[in-house]
């Protein structure tokens, strides 16, 4: 029924989905572009992971992540 690829993808994307959205500048094409880069190969996928890593870590260290989000919002 559910393929191994699907389970892997769900796990990998899980931390992105469950982290709270940053209501910064919302570009309508942001989601599409990041998705394509992630699907574009290992390099792209790793870059996306890295960019999201701070938010993931922020789940466990609230203060640091919150600072970063505030900075983002101020742009």
């Amino acid at each position: 029924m559910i393929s191994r690829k699907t389970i892997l993808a769900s796990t990998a994307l899980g931390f992105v989905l469950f982290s709270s959205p940053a209501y910064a500048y919302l570009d309508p094409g942001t989601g599409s572009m990041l998705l394509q880069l992630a699907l574009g190969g290992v390099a792209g996928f790793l870059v996306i992971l890295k960019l999201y890593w701070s938010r993931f870590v922020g789940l466990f260290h609230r203060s640091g992540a919150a600072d970063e989000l505030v900075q983002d919002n101020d742009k």
Partner: protein
Amino acid sequence: MNHVAIEPGSFRDPMGRVFVGGDHIYRATSAKGRTAFEFVAATGLLAKLEDAGKIVTSRIVPNHVLGGLARTDGIVLEHEKIPYISYPYEWSFSFLKAAALLHLDIHLQALEVGVTLSDASAYNVQFRGSHPVFIDILSFRPLKTGETWDGHRQFCEQFLNPLLLKSKLDIDPNAWYRGTQEGISTPEINRLLPWYKKLSWKMLTHVVAQSALQNANVGTAADARARVEFPLASYRRMLTGLRNWIETIEPAKKSRTEWQDYATGHSYADAEQQAKAAFVARFAAAVTPDILWDIGCNTGDYSAVALANGAAYSVGFDVDQGALTQAYGRAIANDMPFQPLYFDGANPSPSQGWNEAERKSMSARRNADGLIALAFIHHMAIGRNIPLEHVIRWLVGLAPEGVIEFVPKADPMVRQLLTLREDIFEDYSLSAFTEYLREMAEIVATDVITKSGRQLFWYKRKSG
């Protein structure tokens, strides 16, 4: 020369503008648009797509045909005229799906020769009969190495998500689509779909992940794009994957609509149907309309009759999606120049969009020289409380000559409409119908076609 004017819906892309002069459709490019067009034309792609009927035919014409409206550093193309311009919110599921597949096919073919599409607007697809055709020649531009698919988000909003709404949730997207004009956003479809309908790789990527990543900071996306390239093989895989997926998407099984079974389950006998067909055939043979409008076309029975007897092209309008699905199947199977569209007679498409002129109303696109409105008026006059006189005026205003069927109160279909409500329609009678029609038109012929008293009226609108 005909008076040439800019098409008010053509302003988004600075590469070119569309102009209309009588029956002629022109596209004038900017200097940049000219360079892109020449690059694309040199690949041979446009000629191949034209031959395959996938894009409109175009030819370069002298700039002066636009009488000074064209830029001197650009070129002017003249395109074939599409019989009737329609919008995605007027399409059935079948139309939207066919348009989506065409878009992806063209894009895949373009990538083979180093060309891509600058957007994925569903409005760039039109229909010739029930066959989709791509019209925006200036959407083609050279592909840059490593670039992502600019139109992906738009493709999802304008094609994929409306298809998913019908397929996964059994909700027709037309009303929503007409409201937004841009389709259905991915975060919205993501919020609507229950989790167990999202357990597939395609759903997780195009719907779930895209929605989640949409919340990312725009700087994050720019950083990522600067660091990595999107390989061409991945680009192709993405388009092919979407194509294969969309090809398998069907409307939710549970939808069984009232009119889908009409051809077999309706309330009058074969002889009566034949009488109706004979009348329509006689009308079509005498009037030979270039464009027939079939108001309340159902599955297209009488469009088929008209087309077989002298009508050149038929645009069908119906509110029932199941009937439209069958009408599409019939048009494709029999290769009919028949374009069945979704419409609600009591609420036809308005002029809307930027400056209320970007998308034209149904009446502004009026181009029929013949009309049939069979088993239709009781749905408006009794089903929707629209005064009989208004319905007749509206119908006669749509085409100079046509056939309208009067369905009396004694008819089982009208009785059914009145089952649960009081009969407040004192004005609904054959004599009132005839009187209103005579005010606007000459009655060429009539025929009583059922025992219940259904009657066909062939009218010819009075001039002036």
